[in-house]
């Protein structure tokens, strides 16, 4: 999709200050949005999944307030089905930034009987996260949570605002969104309502990768190709872990894979790849013929599954 992908070099954004390229413009827009969140809300946080998009949002927050510390906690809605690499990465980052970490645990929601675990081969904790997320918002009285969702990810997200209003029940009403004009964001709300804010709305997957490269941002090693045990299910390579139920008819393979998104380990499929450096990943992204969510079992359930989850209060 993008020119000259064969010759990608590591060029710092800083070296080309003479003109304002599109990545810098996207960066400036995101920083502006993050500062508006800080100024307009009383208690906000960054939804941190350990994935590249939330890592980029966290990096932008660092840039927005430097030399002060990031004035928000990181909020992790923990399905309990994590890649161990993600948790290690999260803890190191929190330590390094000196910010608070708030964990909303899906396992705890299950233990408390707030939600019921799905059963069966394709069981996932995706829907369950909604309850845990809304409980966490209530417990900590958040009035705004920032996330790394991008409009190019999925059809329903293409209509999402930067400042997305949620009602008392945490629900999204796609037909009744506030218009967003110029760079004036209306974060006014009634008690009990909150906002989800998406500073990198206008970024594409390619922009995110290029930015990570240009800014030299650390990401979990899972994004780079590595050997791991996987099974083939619904046309993607699912990683074998203690949480995955491997059926008798399924065979375990050892494949060189990388992950394009990091989510619940039981449903996040990897793709076969040789891209073991950032540069190579970018070349693969540029040549990709499948969207990054194409490998997520949760989106494959039905054509409108993302939209249905969003209306209920999903990220």
């Amino acid at each position, binding site marked *: 999709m993008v020119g000259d992908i064969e010759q990608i070099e590591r060029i710092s954004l800083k070296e080309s200050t003479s003109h304002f390229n599109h990545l810098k413009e996207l960066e400036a827009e995101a920083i502006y949005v993050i500062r508006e969140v800080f*100024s307009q809300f009383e208690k906000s946080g960054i939804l941190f999944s350990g994935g590249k998009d939330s890592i980029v949002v966290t990096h932008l927050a660092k840039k927005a307030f430097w030399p002060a510390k990031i004035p928000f906690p990181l909020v992790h809605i923990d399905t309990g089905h994590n890649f161990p690499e993600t948790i290690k990465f999260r803890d190191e980052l929190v330590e390094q930034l000196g910010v608070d970490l708030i964990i909303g645990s899906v396992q705890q929601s299950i233990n408390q009987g707030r939600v019921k675990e799905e059963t069966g081969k394709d069981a996932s904790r995706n829907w369950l996260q909604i309850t845990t997320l809304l409980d966490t918002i209530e417990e900590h009285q958040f009035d705004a949570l920032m996330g790394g969702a991008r409009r190019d990810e999925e059809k329903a997200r293409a209509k999402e605002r930067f400042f997305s209003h949620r009602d008392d029940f945490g629900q999204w009403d796609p037909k009744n969104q506030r218009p967003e004009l110029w760079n004036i964001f209306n974060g006014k709300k009634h008690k009990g309502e909150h906002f989800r804010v998406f500073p990198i709305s206008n970024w594409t997957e390619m922009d995110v990768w290029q930015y990570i490269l240009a800014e030299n941002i650390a990401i979990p090693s899972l994004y780079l190709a590595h050997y791991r045990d996987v099974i083939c299910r619904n046309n993607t390579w699912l990683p074998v872990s203690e949480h995955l139920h491997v059926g008798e008819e399924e065979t375990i393979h050892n494949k060189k894979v990388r992950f394009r998104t990091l989510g619940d380990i039981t449903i996040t499929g990897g793709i076969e790849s040789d891209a073991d450096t950032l540069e190579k990943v970018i070349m693969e992204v540029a040549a990709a013929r499948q969207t990054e969510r194409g490998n997520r079992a949760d989106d494959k359930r039905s054509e409108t599954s993302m939209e249905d989850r969003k209306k209920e209060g999903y990220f």
Partner: protein
Amino acid sequence: MENSYLDMELLRFTTAGSVDDGKSTLIGRLLYDSKSIFEDQLEHVANSSKRRGLDHTDLALLTDGLKDEREQGITIDVAYRYFATPKRKFIIADTPGHIQYTRNMVTGASTANVALILIDARKGLVEQTFRHSYIASLLQIPHLVVCINKMDLVNYDEEIFRSIQLEYARFASKLNVKGISFIPISALHGDNVVNPSENMPWYEEKTLLSTLEQIDVSKTTSAAVRFPVQTVIRPKNDTYHDYRGYAGRVAGGQLAVGDSVVVLPSGETSTVKQIHLMDEELSVATTGMSVVVSLADDIDVSRGDMITGITGSPKLQQDIEATLCWFSRKGPQPRSRYTLMHSNNEVKAMVKNLNFKYDVNSLTREGVDTVSVNDIINVTLRTNKPLITDKYAENRTTGALILVDENTNETVAAGMIC
């Protein structure tokens, strides 16, 4: 070898047309022919097309986002689309064409550099064409690209294209736009969208995509320095004990270290000491950049204040004349109060006087007694504190405002300061 990706510029454009003019098909075609569509997306669309009993893959389905819309077969809200060519990254704000959704048109137009206006070659100029063009001009979108679509249904006839072009040009002389291009296309078959048309050899100018790649998008804001302060940064740690920085996004001109500045509304003067983007120290910050500025003197600056140059001062005013696009079913009530948001500042405001209403089809002024949703009116607002303003015609950031209903918290109007 340069990484060309880092040299790409961003172009934001909005699309407008009446229902069925072929807007969704056109966007689908742009994405498809510029190879921005992924296999799984195409597969979805191919399946949906089949389910609807179509014999071809309907590219319009690529852009129809939400379930309700897919069921009703119409686009009902602003949807954003992205694609890139080696030259530029494009953000499309796809807005619906029905009269009642003027609000979405205005929203999409507020950040656009280019407006794409679609006309059905069989129908020529219709009410929506006037309305959309007028809104584009009102919102000061510098360039219009008029696509005359469905040329395949009029035998690719040059005369039909020329007469629509002439009629539009005549109407557009009343508009306030910098440049207009006219392109005869067939969104369905792809003529002149990405690839030149074999069916219209008489058209020798650029295709739609090369037009979009080449339009000049350099920032055209005035040179007057505008830096609205978003928040004050005081780290209070050991290394930066006394540091106090003003965070914001440059809204006009450029700020350089050593420049003399005036802080409004206090009117105190100082000099720019440092400009930071994190640990990177800049000598200049140009329009659009988000930075942190520190001043040589210890003065009181807070959110909503504005750092400006010593020449070309903005106005400080409490009686503000503005053109409003009204979004709410309930018109402005006499003496009812709104929250006015403008350049990171918030004040209370009343609509003091309804001056006149625009007839958006003829661009003429008429009297105004009642205001209903989607009306475009000129009013005088009265605020409880002075605002630091520019004319919208001079600065699309510091000349723009919104009104928020104090009870419902809804955004009820978009305003452009006159």
